[in-house]
């Protein structure tokens, strides 16, 4: 019959499309700011990994004979601090700390937030209860929550990680719950239910992978917040403790030297700004690339 011929004549042979990840990455890289952000993060990762190779002084190595050297003086690329420690070396090792603190606190927070969010979104019965707990955590300003946790656990970088990850839980839980609620209504979840798939299987194989977009964006943005919060806690004397070359602690220590050695606080300040900026723009770029309408109310 001619009708069918007509319908089929413009058929295009199916061609294999690019992988989702590749597509997303391409879209992210088209965003100029996100591109800059990726470069900054990559540099930071390289610095963190190759820190021992890139530095000629140890980050803790004091030399009280050459304190507060300016930028470029006596072979110190970024000068020295008030103990004569090489700023470049401290900056580079600080990159390690920022990344480790950021990654581990975000990872811990995600584990908690994902579990709560998945359960709350999936089971209406416990939703109310879980969300009240989340509200409870939410009602604390984050920095206050962190301060209380640190007062309880003591001041150390590990406790900062714990505090920040607990602080990440409510936000993550809300986002995941929101996604779960909308994904749950999708027909492919119904299809899986009608096939008789178990709840665990549906949650882990079908809902979780489809929440990845908001989670990735949340995690990226959260990296920024985590690094910023670590530095704020250090400023309040509750975060990383000297001589740890954590950037926030370096700023806090350097503020006393604003006059004679401004580079001591400005250099780590810029480092924090750039890093946080980078994670934010990459997060933005990812969101635009993954789903511009994504709800991220944090």
């Amino acid at each position: 019959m001619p009708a069918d011929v007509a319908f089929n004549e413009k058929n295009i042979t199916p061609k294999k499309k690019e992988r989702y990840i590749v597509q997303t990455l391409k879209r992210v890289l088209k965003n100029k700011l996100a591109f800059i952000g990726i470069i900054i993060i990559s540099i930071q990762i390289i610095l963190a990994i190759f820190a021992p190779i890139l530095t000629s002084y140890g980050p803790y190595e004091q030399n009280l004979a050459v304190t507060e050297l300016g930028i470029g003086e006596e072979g110190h690329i970024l000068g020295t601090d008030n103990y004569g420690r090489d700023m470049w070396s401290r900056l580079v090792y600080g990159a390690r700390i920022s990344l480790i603190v950021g990654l581990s606190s975000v990872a811990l927070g995600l584990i908690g937030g994902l579990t709560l969010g998945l359960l709350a979104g999936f089971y209406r019965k416990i939703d109310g209860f879980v969300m009240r707990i989340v509200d409870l955590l939410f009602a604390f300003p984050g920095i206050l929550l962190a301060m209380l946790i640190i007062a309880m656990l003591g001041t150390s970088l590990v406790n900062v990680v714990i505090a920040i990850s607990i602080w990440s839980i409510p936000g993550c839980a809300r986002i995941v719950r929101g996604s779960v609620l909308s994904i749950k209504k999708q027909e492919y979840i119904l299809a899986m239910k009608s096939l008789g798939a178990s709840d665990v299987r549906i949650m882990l194989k079908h809902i979780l992978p489809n929440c990845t977009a908001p989670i990735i964006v949340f995690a990226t943005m959260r990296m920024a917040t985590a690094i910023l919060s670590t530095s704020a806690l250090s400023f309040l004397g509750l975060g990383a403790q000297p001589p740890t070359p954590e950037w926030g602690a370096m700023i806090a220590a350097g503020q006393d030297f604003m006059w004679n050695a401004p580079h001591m606080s400005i250099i780590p300040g810029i480092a924090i700004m750039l890093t946080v900026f980078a994670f934010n723009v990459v997060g933005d770029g990812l969101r635009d690339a993954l789903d511009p309408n994504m709800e991220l109310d944090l």
Partner: protein
Amino acid sequence: MIGLIVRRFLQLVLLLLGISFLVFMSMHIAPGDPATIIGGPTASASDLEAIRNDLGLDRPVIVQYADYLGGILQGDFGYSFQTGQPVTDAILTRFPNTIKLATASMIVAIIIGIVTGIVSAIKQNSWIDLSSTTFALAGVSIPNFWLGTMLILVFAVNLQWLPVGGLSAPIYTIEGMKELILPAITLGTASAALIARMSRSAMLEVIRSDYIRTAKAKGVKPRSLIWIHALRNAMIPVVTVIGINFGGLLGGTIITEQVFAINGIGRLMIDAIASRDFPIVQGTVLLVAAIFVLVNLIVDLIYAFIDPRITYN
């Protein structure tokens, strides 16, 4: 509407109960004994015993908590371990400053945030958009204690335009407003940046919506298209962000008050945590949580005002 308010208040009571329990327990588990702080390094063991007895810290924790709750029911939030002042008094002297600071910052944040957000949405991908997006991102990226110090150095110390710190003059005087400018900017920048980002994306989404196309099809002029048809719709998600962000703003007062020598709740709180002044910690945390919940209630009410689809009954 009234149902919503009543329900929220009931929830608030439960929430505060939960928070008070958590805070009470965590403060008691936390290392550091309030008596050693009051006694100082010189106090003898018997001195400390006397102080503990005086503060009632030698009783079982659960008894102390029950006692505390009992006090609250009678409107008594306890007395500061450090100064012996009633917690309510200690909070009331500082509360106006924090409210001033938070409100001023919020106003700064909302105005700057919404205007830049909308302008950059309208001029999407122009240099205005790029620069305000960059501003917004830089705004959320600056540690605010650092920003505060920098602002002091530039505007108060070098240019001497504005005072370094403190909030002592009444708000309606020029002096009072001048005192507020730097702290409000310090605290408001991050929120402004967040609001700007949210406004931008909300506006972009609204601009692409069907009803905006309908309005164009009616021949509506671009200006009223944006400021009448689009703005109100775009404000719906922005208002939510403002509400949720208020918690962060309250947290930010801790640092801002510290840097600008403002005698507010945030500083009271950090001092109280450092000196293990449990009643003050309790009182301030409860207050902050209550404010957060109330602000979000107000946000929900504004929400219903902006969006007729939402009714609370």
